[in-house]
């Protein structure tokens, strides 16, 4: 296993503070992701690679859904993993690793959205633009049924278009709950909001999205499985 070259002046990574394994049956088992994170924090680059692979889909999905642009999302996902690499030694394991990753991703997304907004970038995406629909897919998906792939691309483009009309704060809740399937409890940890705020804000976001998507999800619109 190759080791990470030093990033500090003295050539050493800071000592990791993640929890260690325990043989005590009364101690809950260590989250396997945490074990990988601990190894990565100790300088095991193979473990860090595994962590990136493990969270690649989740981090990228949140970034793409939040930013609405594939290139920006790819760049942001890389930025998140670099930030994670530097922050791992300080990660204490007080929350789930996934929650921590989602929190970093969410923070970076909101930051990037502000940055892009100041520069008026990405404000006029059109779901009927084939370029937008094609951003959802990936050449790696070509082995799938082409018809199903097309349906999914259209579906994703519709959803993406609706999401972009929500405020970033509403969007993050819909992404975390309805697309990433996080529990309310996890969302509270990711966002730092109170449970009541999560519920009411999520309700407003969903109601808003229902109105936006009504032409396609309404009784005469898109067929949606129950």
């Amino acid at each position, binding site marked *: 296993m190759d080791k*990470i*070259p030093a*990033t500090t*002046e003295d050539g050493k990574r800071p000592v990791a503070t993640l929890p260690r394994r325990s043989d005590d049956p009364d101690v809950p088992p260590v989250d396997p992701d945490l074990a990988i994170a601990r190894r990565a924090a100790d300088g095991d680059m193979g473990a860090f*690679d595994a962590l990136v*692979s493990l969270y690649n*889909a*989740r*981090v*990228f*999905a949140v970034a*793409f859904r939040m930013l609405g642009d594939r290139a920006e*999302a*790819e760049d942001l*996902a*890389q930025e998140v*993993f*670099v*930030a994670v*690499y530097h*922050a791992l*030694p*300080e990660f204490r394991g007080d929350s*789930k690793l996934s929650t921590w990753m989602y929190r970093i991703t969410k*923070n*970076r997304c909101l930051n990037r959205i*502000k*940055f892009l907004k*100041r520069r008026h970038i990405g404000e006029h995406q059109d779901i009927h633009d084939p370029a937008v629909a094609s*951003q959802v*897919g*990936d050449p*790696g*998906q070509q082995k799938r049924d082409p018809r199903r792939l097309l349906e*999914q691309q259209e579906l*994703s483009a*519709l*959803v993406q278009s609706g999401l972009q009309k929500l405020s970033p704060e509403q969007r993050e809740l*819909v992404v975390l*709950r309805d*697309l990433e399937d996080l529990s*309310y*409890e996890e969302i509270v*940890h990711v966002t730092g909001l109170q*449970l009541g705020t999560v*519920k*009411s804000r*999520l*309700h407003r976001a*969903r*109601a808003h*999205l*229902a*109105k936006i998507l*009504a032409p396609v*999800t*309404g009784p005469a619109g*898109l067929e*949606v499985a*129950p």
Partner: protein
Amino acid sequence: MTRLELIVNDKNPSRDEMREQLDAYIDGFVSEDMRAAIEAALAQDDALRAEYEALRRTMSLLHQTDRPAPPVDMVARVRHRLAAERAAPMPGDDEMDKVVDLAERRLLKRAVLFTASVGIAAAAALFVVVGLPQMAEGGAHGVAAAGLSLGARAATISVADVAATDVEMLASEAGLTMLDGTLVFEGTGAEVARFVFKLRSDKQAEVRGVVPDGERIRLTVKLTPGAP
């Protein structure tokens, strides 16, 4: 991890309370009482049922949507980025002025942007004070790259378009805690320059190698109420 309790308040909910809970009902995240009340109301109230159906279809649509396919080479990309970060070459003396000039031009450009944004900047102004306890003469380049005056032993810059949340996020990722709106970051010139540029939503690569890496610099970041 603390388990969250459901909010239970639902013996006789009003219609508005039920409307607010419709999506949580679809999620299965309501109390038994609320569930029973909503089901009874849905059987009688056409408008409420229409609202419920719209929410159900929307949430169903979201649940059917696949995750976008991530780049398959993310590991390699991240490795490449980390390697670039570590291997940022120190320019030779003859190249230094060129790099500093470039950095200064960018800073000037940003300064104009900052000035333009001050009038509409809402939340906070950020003052960054950098002290250079052992600054050698050659360290002046580094100071310039970090956005400070050449030759100064300490200087103050104002970064008006940085939001408080950005500072808190970076502080958290760096393992620092803000006390009374102030945090202290201590590190080499390169580390401090990276931190400053992160605060400015900029790319780290632009300053890498410009600041002499041997200097220890203490950076005090203070958030103060911004101008209207």
